[in-house]
């Protein structure tokens, strides 16, 4: 699963720790999400999308579905 977490976090001038505190997860989880190593649960994906004021689809995208979109 691909995501725009790093891009949006940097745009919002937020540190990984600040985002972790707002999403109530550990900083390691934010690092793993940004690297695309970990796929979040629907609850965490919803929390993160709420933080950035976006929909889940705008924040996360399945690699297999990326081609279908365009």
């Amino acid at each position, binding site marked *: 699963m691909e995501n725009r977490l790093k891009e949006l976090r940097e745009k919002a001038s937020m540190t990984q*720790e600040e985002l972790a*505190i707002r999403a109530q*997860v550990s900083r390691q*989880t934010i690092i793993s999400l940004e690297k695309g190593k970990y796929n*979040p649960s629907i609850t965490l994906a919803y929390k993160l999308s709420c933080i950035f004021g976006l929909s889940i689809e705008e924040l996360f995208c399945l690699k297999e579905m990326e081609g279908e979109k365009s």
Partner: protein
Amino acid sequence: MTNGKLLIKYLVLLIIGGIAVWQIMTGNTSFGTGLLAGILIAGVLLGINSRQIIQNTEKGMDPYDERVWAVAGKASYAALKIFAVIIALIVLLGSIWGPQLMVNPYNLLGICLAGLMLMYVCFYYYYNSKM
């Protein structure tokens, strides 16, 4: 980790430490010393770990978030699977070709537990770096 849970963990370590001292005093020095060394190491590790957890919790982060549970779940499954396969192979091959041995069941259980824990820790670090 709440203060209550931490207190219980330290209390358990203290009780086992007491058993270790009692064993040393009654002449079972090798077992008592080993147990005491293990308790000291566990106490130091618990202290470091709980300090980090308390610091992160105070900041508002969750040190036991969903990723930690996912890593722990994968590590447990992998450790259990490998452990079961190894035990099954030992039982199978040992029953056919192995010699009949008289073993202390407590020692055997201790070795099995230590092996399982070691595998879990190794798999935990492996999945923690992968996820």
